[in-house]
């Protein structure tokens, strides 16, 4: 009997001790302590953004895969909070600015306005998107000069977050600065990608090859986005007039509202077909947010203020004072001051608002 008791006792002890054995990862079920605050990274840049962009020029205006110890530093000047900038981060130093194609959404959660960001460029690629300098990774399909970085491992090993500093003041540029910058191009001019302020923009732009209308928008609709997007029969350009659209862009619901109101009935497909009931139904079935440009003039230079259909202010009405008389063929709207990111697209100036507060009527 003694043996039996001993055996049972041993079993009990074994069971209890097995249940508390150190080799088993103990499970914590108490109150978790808050993690320590993440410390800002301290690094030193050895290359300016201008020098980085120069590499592209030095390579015969072709994309360059950066090798070796190339570290840039810049302050964050963009925020995707309003949804108007998406998957991209603009940083600038004293010499210029660059669009870092991080490729993640809600970047403003991690990269704050004014925050210093260090980019180890080794292995990354600098390239152009229709003239606008971008820092990403190689696009192995060859379709674009760079691809989004978006693999977290690459982001974490190349992009480092430093101290949150004071947000840089926007650089004021004059009517004369803009044509000069455009002529220099995205890689030579320090202005593109930078936070700038332009005073005196007016609504409307000089006539183009496609229209005589002074006031106009630009939007591209696909009748069926699942079909060939390159086919003219599948495209509708809303580019020759305003079509009565007085918002910065169109959310899906706004687009449907405008479509159902007949605003686009006079448009044509890329191959000249009128918008009939069948096309309209397809547009309705495939409705999506519409990213759009509103044309403005800065002196003699056209500036497209381009706004995402997913931005929180896309459906906001542009102040009628800014728009002036819709049928007028001259700049009769109130001049505005705009603050945001200046970009270039095929030799034309584009402007991206960080949020709607970037537009102000002058002297109001």
């Amino acid at each position, binding site marked *: 009997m003694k043996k*039996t008791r001993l055996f049972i006792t041993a079993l009990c002890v074994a069971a209890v001790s097995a249940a508390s054995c150190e080799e088993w990862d103990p499970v914590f079920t108490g109150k978790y302590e808050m993690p320590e605050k993440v410390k800002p990274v301290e690094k030193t840049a050895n290359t300016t953004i201008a020098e980085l962009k120069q590499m592209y020029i030095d390579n015969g205006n072709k994309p360059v895969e950066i090798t070796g110890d190339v570290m840039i530093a810049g302050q964050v000047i963009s925020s995707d909070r309003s949804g108007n900038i998406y998957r991209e981060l603009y940083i600038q130093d004293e010499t210029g600015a660059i669009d870092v194609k991080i490729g993640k959404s809600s970047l403003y959660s991690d990269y704050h306005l004014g925050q210093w960001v260090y980019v180890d460029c080794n292995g990354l690629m600098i390239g152009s998107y229709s003239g606008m300098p971008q820092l990403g990774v190689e696009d192995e399909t060859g379709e674009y000069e760079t691809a989004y970085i978006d693999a977290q491992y690459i982001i974490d090993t190349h992009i480092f977050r430093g101290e949150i500093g004071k947000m840089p003041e926007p650089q004021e540029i004059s009517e004369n600065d803009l044509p000069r910058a455009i002529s220099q191009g995205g890689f030579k001019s320090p202005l593109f990608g930078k936070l700038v302020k332009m005073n005196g923009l007016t609504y409307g732009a000089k006539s183009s090859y496609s229209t005589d209308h002074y006031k106009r928008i630009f939007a591209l609709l696909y009748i069926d986005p699942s079909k060939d997007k390159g086919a003219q029969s599948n495209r509708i350009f809303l580019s020759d007039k305003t079509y009565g659209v007085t918002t910065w862009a169109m959310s899906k619901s706004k687009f449907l509202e405008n479509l159902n109101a007949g605003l686009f009935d006079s448009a044509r497909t890329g191959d000249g077909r009128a918008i009939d009931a069948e096309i309209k139904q397809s547009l309705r079935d495939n409705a999506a947010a519409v990213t759009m440009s509103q044309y403005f003039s800065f002196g003699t230079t056209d500036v497209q203020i381009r706004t995402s259909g997913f931005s929180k202010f896309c459906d906001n009405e542009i102040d009628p004072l800014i728009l002036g008389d819709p049928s007028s063929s001259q700049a009769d709207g109130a001049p505005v001051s705009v603050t945001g990111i200046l970009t270039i697209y095929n030799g034309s100036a584009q402007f991206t608002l960080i949020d709607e507060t970037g537009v102000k009527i002058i002297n109001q």
Partner: protein
Amino acid sequence: MIRKVTLALVASLVSMTLLAQTGGVKGTVLNRVDRTPVTNAELTLFQGAQEIATAKTDESGNFLIERLEDGIYDLVVKASEFLETRVNVTVNDGYVKNMFNITLTQSRSEIMDEIFEEFDMDDSGYNDNPVILFDQNDVFNSVAGYNFSSVRFNPRGYSSESQDVLLAGVKMNDAITGYSPFSLWSGLNEATRTKYTVTGSEVSDYGLGGYNGLTNIPANASNVRKGLRGSVLTNSALYRLRLMMTYSSGMNDKGWAYAVSASARLGGNDWIDGVYYRSFGYYASVEKKFNDVHRLAATFMATPGSRGAQNASTQEVYDLMGDNMYNSNWGYQNGKIRNSRIRKTHEPIAILKYDYTPNDKFKASATLLYRFGKNGYTAIDWYDAQDPRPDYYRNLPSYFWMENRDFGRRNMFKYAAAKEAWTHSSLYPEMTHVNWERLYDVNRNNLEGVAGIPRSKYISEERRVDQRDLNFAGSFKWNTNSWLTLSGGLNAKINRTENYKIVDDLLGGYYFVDIDSFAEREYASAAAKVQNDLDYYLAHGEARRLYKGDKFGYDYYAQIRNIEAWLNGRFAVGNFSADLGGKIGYSSFWREGLVRKGLFPGLKPDGTDYIIDGVNLSRDSEGNLLPTSYGKSEVKGFLTYAGKLGLNYMIGGRMRIYGNVGFFNDAPNFNMAFMSPRTRNTTVDNLTTTKTFTSDLNWQFTGNGFNARITGYYTYIWDQTDVMSAFDDMQNAFSNFALSGIDERHYGIEVGFKVPTPVPNLSIQGVVSAGRYEYTSNPTMVQTIDNSAEPVEYGGFTTLLIPFWKSTPIFKRDGSGNPTYEIDHYQRHYIPSTPQLATSLGLSYNYNYWYIDGDVEYFDGAYLDMNPLYRTDYATGGPDGIVTPTEVEYMTTQEKFDAAWLVNFSIGKSWYIQRKYQLGFSLNAKNILNNKNVKTGGYEQTRIVDNTVGNERYYRFDPKYFYMSGVNYMLNVYFRF
């Protein structure tokens, strides 16, 4: 001996003249392994098929049945956790026949309810709630219930909802989903050990039941084994430690009995990180027997606690991690594992039960049961931030590079980088597990809301499903005469379940906002439309700020009312008996919205539209009135009814042949009736009852250590509905899919046997379950976009046939092996997750208080759960709309899991100490071949890769799987006295 006899419980006799009723039968029921008495064993005395008397054993295992006339009888002995046995008894010359010891064979080891606890499927709409084979008296169920549990075997392919589980006579299946509610008492094994179970469509004394068995757990004090029992259990697959202590007084001379029990289940396991238990159990019951006629019992019990859940992942993730047990729910916080998905429950049950037994021929009972408390499930919620799930598809290597160029994923650099992280998880835990530190960092630094006060972008939310469930159940059994026994009852339920979310943890921030982030994607500039609480917004001009403990998101009652009456007549003549029964009832339910959502506000109290900032919230873009989120929905009511016929023929006392047929007309469950109950009152169109026809034929032999059953069954279920919600890439929106007209057929055989071998004390045992559980219809689907409630139009129609639901056409091949347009045959689609073939063969050895069992098992024919979207013409047509054989076969085929071999082994022994105490242990080792590649379930994601290079076809997202853990053990050491 006299004392023992006086302690014997009541015996009843029917249809005999008193003058001749002088004989009887007595004896003691013992456990065959350790010779311990079996208390509360049920003894039923038959003459042919006619039930003559019933009795129960007392605390010493003794029984006595008196007032029998001379004759030959069959005594059937049943007890929880033992196989049923039958013995012949001859009573002559008016003597009480002493049977001495009747030994029962223990059925398989204790089933751990916890292995069935639901998988974390909240995000997918997928549910895989299992069926537990409670019936341990039956040889098939005893072996299959234990051996097959690890592969999530569902007998006959039936779903959990079809199994009736009763507590003190009250049906406890979840009022919303119909699932078995075992988690309400798992961990209170001793207190709920006594169970009365019938299999298939047999009729129970406690209810007419359905077609998948009925189990009643009495749970009152007198049904808990007398004495003090304690056990220490450790196992490697669920939790480290279970401690349990139970005391039952037994019924004392004054007619009082009480029982108490407490338990704790604690710790993690060897296989799945983040899964743990911190659960407790408490139970108290007191019972008063006023005389032989009246008995009243009050019971209170609950299993409060929390447990960490696991999640399914794609095979790509498992392969990268080199571990099919990878769980994406957890991450490190300050070096400690923190699981984001925690089930937190405390749902007490209070029971008052009254039994009335005026005479031997009539007994009745009435139960009032109330279930209340809270049931929560945490999850990370985020607003205006990146998806924090580590295995989100954009974080995986396959998002960057795929061999198939049509995916357009050709970036090897990014692929290699992602792979580097995933294959070196220990170096990069922040990328392969939940990155808690980043979530805190993001929250702390989000100062762009109220100046200087960080607004949380990520929080831990707790999704609450709090039930208030009041039940009444009354039943009776009346032996009217020698050939007819009537049983019947009345059940009623009032259930009000509140569904809402609360802020569980702000994760370093100070507040959160009550905004619908899905709505904001579409209505970013319409602030009123994205409000979860529009009334608050209108009153305060901003979204509600949320702090810890605040309700948010949605809040509604599911209101359910059921009433049902049932009656069964058992006719017995000679060796033949028949059951004929039916039930009729009425079920109704409705939704009652408690907050007004901006997307679906309904009309103002004065009947006008909500027009805020120029946006008409009450109507869609075409002016149609939108459904409402607030107030009471339409009441859906259903007449339910069922009928059953059972025939039973006894051959020689130990053999019986019996069969059953039944028809059931059941109401749909609440969760199948509302399109999107979190947002609005919309119900599924053409909602109807589910119909079931079932039949079975059985042969059973019991006695002399032999147990065997062979069953053939056929069941047809039609007019089922289902609702699932998921993101639809084709619509680029979160959608709800309502399926109607799902029909299925279940047929097959079950074989179970346990027979002695020529080697003393050695038995051979085995089971075979071979069936076909298949879909037989192509249902229709209505899809609505969650943000607008607008039915999606396919070719101008809102109701869409799913042409490839029940089968996939397999096309003939040309000379090059490419499919032609000529169909070769159809490949059926099956009820998912459970194996269609499950077999087990083993040996069982019992000697001198030792038992040793070993089994080899084989499983085949388990299938992946399907989603309807892949089986539409639109998914198979692709962007170009042309349906090709290649696309049909690729998109609609149902995945079959690989067959699996498993080996289990058990050993145990008990010791009697000073003839007073019993000590023992059992050690069960499962899957000792350490097979880690056995899929036990999974589901197809609803998502589609729609941006293909060729623009001709779509691709599926990878499915997600659950795997069985490798070798695992359970060691239980117990003592009793």
